[in-house]
């Protein structure tokens, strides 16, 4: 610690702190533009110049390191003169277009100009005009407003991991620009809008639609991936106008992924595939808009009839993992009240053999913030950058600090992280590959190897890659293994789980699951899984579709896109006598299979709770009133419970539901445990033929984001292709760019594409997409032939 004095106040600050950090500690504000606590120092805007005793020139507070006894004056004549001088320079070429600038009202330049600028400019020369750039569908540019603080440049290079913007030319002609002909395609690009201190980078979907001071601000929680990013939802007249990050250092820091930031557009979708705003029932094959009481009666009757005729077990409940804790809790209670144990939210999971063997609720295995403290990591089966953009960002920073990150996966996507080692194998060999890592670690540790592992077919996988990963892992002090979405959706997910557990045990480290969805932990807490109440009696998400039920309750999901086998789901729903759908959205598929459509609120129109991947309980209120006749799903379920005479449905508020589900209001849920017992690793499985590697593209992962138009125009939303490496293409006699017929459960016509990051014999075809759902299972073997 060193002692310094700022404006006459003495304070202790940590060694190596900068003056601006010290001033913040004191609550003193030093004006600045280029400085940002998460970015490297640039010291180029010069707005933060302050006076330091015995230093003849004003010094930038952002880049000056404190020394013991330093005396700093932030408001002395020298400091103020320097700050005013810089402000004058910043303004001479800045257009006076605040009245038409989206940044107006939340512009740092505008704010600081009030405090540090003259009322009239002394600049009488021609002003600079800078050509605008096309950065893609999300970020809009007005480059004449740019003050060249280069925050955006540093963000792309340091946080997003790829320098997609640079400062070209020099002097007064400097311009921030992307590479020639390129846009900014990072999944974190929206943060540029927040970082830009002026109106040079603004939100393309939002711009010109509202002034910032017209908007109401509501805290909320992201309904997408398992991180549970904290949001500020901004509304005007009960319409969500935009979404901004709510800073939470433990979760999303000050960032949001583009999915979290721009998916709100889906809340306002109005086309045939858009919001469902009125209850509807199908009568004689015709859809009719009806009153709520009619629709609810209809739904209750349908379910009661099936329960009476075929028994409760003839009903299946498919819940979206993006539904709130309250919704899931009431849905499972309703299902169980009807006598059905067939309830599941793990819609894309295909291996449930760990059910009944779990010690507790699977979770991240650590706090999110602890990820940054790890020095060795193995990420198994994850399209990390697209599935968990902000966790990928944390790993990127860890790797820069010296942590070693290894990857074991079926696709070698560029994570923009410096990887220590990687092992890429076809899906069926992932367990064997992980077993090899376990074996290698055991050898390095001098521990006897599990007999089952010594027999693992070493000839099938790249043993050297496994050894390299093992060498990295054993060299660390704080190790973790993280299982991604792909590992959780894997046909041998339980084996991967058991192996990761074994590996963590050998290493004295931790292991966990990267939660796929906002409530991947919450679903377990809400008991929305078979067997949670009555032993192992019910059918899981796959079983209840494989063995079709008479009736289904679908909450918030589009099973044809959100299930492990969309084709199978659609077939089962189509055959059912009654499908009751509670959804914020409608779709043609829904109109085909459903008997009754109940319009329920998306996250922005209801109160509720998400339990994020670290087990953190995050409740939120509605940001707007429900659209049209939409109602919060917990209320709909509560009334359905009453109509069906299910006991214990006397809730008046969502808080009551939460209290019952959680047994209080803890900060973190209890019962988190990734351990499994009695799951014998199954390492014999091998696939015969081409194996599908199915990713869930970032902007197709859930019903809300699928309806966000701007996101659908990004490069990440390109139509699925059949990707193969050069060897696989050659073996099939294919050339990249050719149309191919892909066959599995069904068929799809796709374009063959070269992807050097895939293992031999793998064909990568995205799931959750209308073009590919007919193929059926995400995890399958398939045929590929030229059309």
């Amino acid at each position: 610690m060193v002692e310094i004095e700022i404006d006459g106040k003495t304070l202790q600050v940590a060694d190596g702190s900068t003056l601006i950090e010290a001033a913040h500690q004191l609550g003193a504000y030093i004006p600045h533009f280029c400085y940002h606590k998460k970015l490297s120092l640039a010291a180029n805007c010069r707005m933060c110049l302050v006076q330091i005793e015995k230093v003849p020139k004003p010094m930038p507070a952002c880049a000056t390191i404190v020394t013991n006894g330093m005396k700093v004056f932030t408001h002395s004549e020298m400091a103020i003169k320097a700050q005013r001088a810089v402000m004058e320079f910043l303004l001479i070429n800045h257009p006076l277009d605040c009245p038409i600038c989206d940044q107006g009202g939340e512009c740092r330049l505008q704010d600081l100009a009030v405090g540090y600028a003259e009322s009239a400019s002394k600049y009488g020369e021609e002003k600079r005009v800078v050509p605008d750039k096309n950065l893609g569908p999300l970020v809009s540019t007005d480059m004449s407003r740019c003050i060249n603080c280069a925050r955006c440049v540093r963000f792309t290079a340091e946080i997003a991991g790829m320098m997609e913007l640079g400062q070209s030319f020099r002097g007064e002609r400097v311009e921030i620009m992307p590479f020639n002909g390129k846009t900014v395609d990072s999944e974190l690009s929206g943060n540029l809008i927040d970082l830009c201190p002026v109106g040079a980078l603004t939100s393309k979907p939002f711009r010109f639609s509202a002034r910032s001071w017209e908007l109401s601000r509501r805290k909320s929680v992201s309904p997408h991936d398992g991180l549970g990013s904290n949001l500020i939802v901004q509304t005007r007249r009960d319409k969500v106008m935009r979404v901004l990050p709510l800073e939470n250092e433990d979760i999303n820091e000050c960032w949001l992924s583009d999915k979290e930031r721009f998916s709100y557009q889906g809340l306002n979708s109005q086309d045939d595939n858009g919001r469902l705003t009125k209850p509807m029932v199908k009568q004689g094959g015709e859809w009719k808009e009806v009153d709520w009481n009619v629709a609810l009666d209809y739904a209750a009757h349908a379910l009661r009839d099936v329960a009476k005729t075929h028994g409760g077990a003839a009903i299946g409940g498919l819940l979206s993992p993006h539904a709130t804790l309250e919704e899931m809790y009431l849905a499972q209670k309703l299902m169980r009240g009807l006598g059905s144990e067939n309830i599941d939210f793990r819609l894309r999971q295909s291996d449930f053999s760990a059910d009944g063997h779990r010690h507790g609720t699977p979770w991240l295995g650590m706090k999110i913030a602890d990820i940054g403290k790890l020095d060795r990591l193995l990420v198994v089966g994850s399209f990390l950058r697209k599935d968990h953009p902000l966790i990928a960002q944390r790993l990127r920073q860890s790797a820069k600090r010296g942590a070693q990150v290894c990857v074991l996966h079926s696709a070698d996507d560029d994570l923009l992280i410096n990887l220590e080692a990687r092992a890429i194998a076809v899906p069926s060999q992932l367990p064997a590959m992980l077993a090899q890592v376990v074996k290698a670690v055991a050898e390095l540790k001098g521990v006897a190897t599990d007999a089952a592992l010594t027999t693992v077919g070493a000839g099938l996988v790249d043993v050297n890659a496994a050894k390299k990963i093992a060498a990295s892992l054993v060299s660390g002090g704080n190790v973790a293994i993280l299982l991604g979405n792909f590992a959780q959706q894997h046909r041998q997910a339980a084996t991967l789980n058991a192996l990761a557990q074994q590996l963590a045990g050998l290493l004295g480290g931790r292991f966990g699951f990267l939660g796929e969805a906002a409530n991947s932990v919450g679903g377990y807490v809400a008991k929305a899984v078979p067997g949670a109440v009555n032993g192992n009696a019910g059918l899981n998400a796959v079983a209840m579709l494989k063995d079709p039920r008479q009736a289904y309750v679908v909450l918030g999901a589009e099973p044809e896109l959100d299930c492990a086998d969309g084709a199978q789901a659609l077939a089962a729903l189509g055959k059912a006598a009654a499908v009751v759908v509670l959804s914020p959205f409608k779709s043609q598929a829904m109109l085909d299979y459903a008997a009754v459509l109940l319009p329920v609120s998306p996250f922005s129109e209801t109160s509720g709770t998400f339990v994020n991947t670290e087990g953190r309980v995050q409740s939120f209120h509605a940001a707007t009133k429900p659209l049209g006749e939409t109602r919060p799903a917990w209320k709909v379920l509560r009334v359905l419970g009453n109509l069906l005479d299910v006991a214990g449905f006397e809730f008046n508020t969502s808080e009551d539901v939460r209290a019952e589900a959680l047994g209080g209001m803890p900060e973190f849920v209890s019962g988190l445990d990734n351990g499994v017992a009695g799951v014998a690793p199954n390492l014999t499985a091998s696939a015969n033929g081409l194996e599908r590697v199915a990713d869930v593209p970032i902007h197709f992962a859930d019903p809300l984001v699928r309806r966000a138009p701007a996101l659908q125009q990004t490069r990440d939303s390109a139509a699925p292709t059949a990707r193969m490496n050069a060897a696989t293409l050659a073996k099939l006699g294919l050339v990249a760019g050719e149309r191919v017929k892909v066959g599995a459960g069904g068929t799809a016509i796709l374009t063959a594409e070269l992807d050097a990051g895939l293992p031999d014999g793998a064909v990568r075809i995205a799931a959750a997409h209308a073009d590919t759902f007919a193929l059926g299972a995400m995890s399958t073997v398939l045929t590929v032939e030229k059309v």
Partner: protein
Amino acid sequence: MALIDTINPLLTTGWSKGDAGWSLKDYEARGGYAQLKRILANKMSSDDIIAEVKKSGLRGRGGAGFPTGLKWSFMPKAAPEKYVVCNTDEGEPGTFKDRDLLRYDPHSVIEGMIIAGYAVGAARGYNYIHGEIFEIYRRFEAALDEARAAGYLGQRILGSDFSFDLFAHHGWGAYVCGEETGLLESIEGKKGQPRFKPPFPANFGLYGKPTTINNTETFAAIPFILGMGGDAYLNLGKPNNGGTKLFSVSGHVNRPGNYEVPMGTPFAKLLEMAGGMRGGRQLKAVIPGGSSAPVLPAEVMMECTMDYESIAKAGSMLGSGAVIVMDETVCMVKALERLSYFYYEESCGQCTPCREGSGWLYRVVHRIEHGEGRAEDLDLLNRVTDNMMGKTICALADAAAFPVRGFIKNFRSEFEYHIEHRKCLVDPEVQRMGSGFFKAGAA
């Protein structure tokens, strides 16, 4: 152009044969590489070398005049990876001494750099050569080949334990890359933008490693200092202004060129060596240390001696030793417009005051020169320069500001005349006469 005309030739001793005297053979014949051999044979300690350089009073010849020995002593001893970098990014208008040093005597720079590498414990060096003098870059490469072939560079030099290799790197002519940290960024393959200091290169230099970076002339002086001894070198010049210095004399003199004189030589003597004023015209003004140094009126300059203190006392800087001589045919407004355009063009653009201010200065001076000046412009220019100076990462903003302040301060009436009468005080015909394109008296 006069090649040399010196009082006590030292650095320029090898220049007498012009382009025929640069090779290794010639350099060795002049006693070249003897100091390196002596150091390696005697296993001289690094401290002894640095002490000798300190004793010599050698100050950085790039313009800032920082004591070289002291700079070397800042290098951390224990660091495993260190660099020596030579700054030949000679971009300051008026300066052309390093160009000729590398052209006529490249091995003196190579030997100086090897000795510096030995002294600071670096195994690798780079010479960053300005990207407009490509023939010099090729010359230096040729000299490097010779030195490597002769065993002066590479592994275990001359059978000693010391290994050092040296590489040439050329820029593309950006002035700001002559700023030492901008230069380091440029070698690293990045855009040439100066870094915020501290940390200084001695701690965080090339590729983040401790780096000693000196001017070409500074390195060239090293073998001579070690040859004659620090004391003898110091005694060539004045106390605290050791040795000789190259001055690039340009402008309205009869024999523009590089002149090596001991520090402290009167300016009048230097002017005489350069053949006096062209066409016998009257001296009007001198920029004594490269275009960023404030201009001095004739009567002040004629009283100065060529050393750091004397020039500083007169209100300017010795800088890189580029002496720009202007006679009575020069319009000071036009001269300043040209200089201001240079800094406007060469600002790297990262710091606000320089990016915005350099263009502002140029535009106002341009307006005045073109008869559109306003009464308040001179105060405005002074205010803008005041707002620029001392507020940026590197000194380019100051370099842009100094000429403006110097010209206005010393030739204010000429600027006022321009604003008031919307034309030059110096008749355009006279101006044309003074420009090098017309022979004196031809008009």
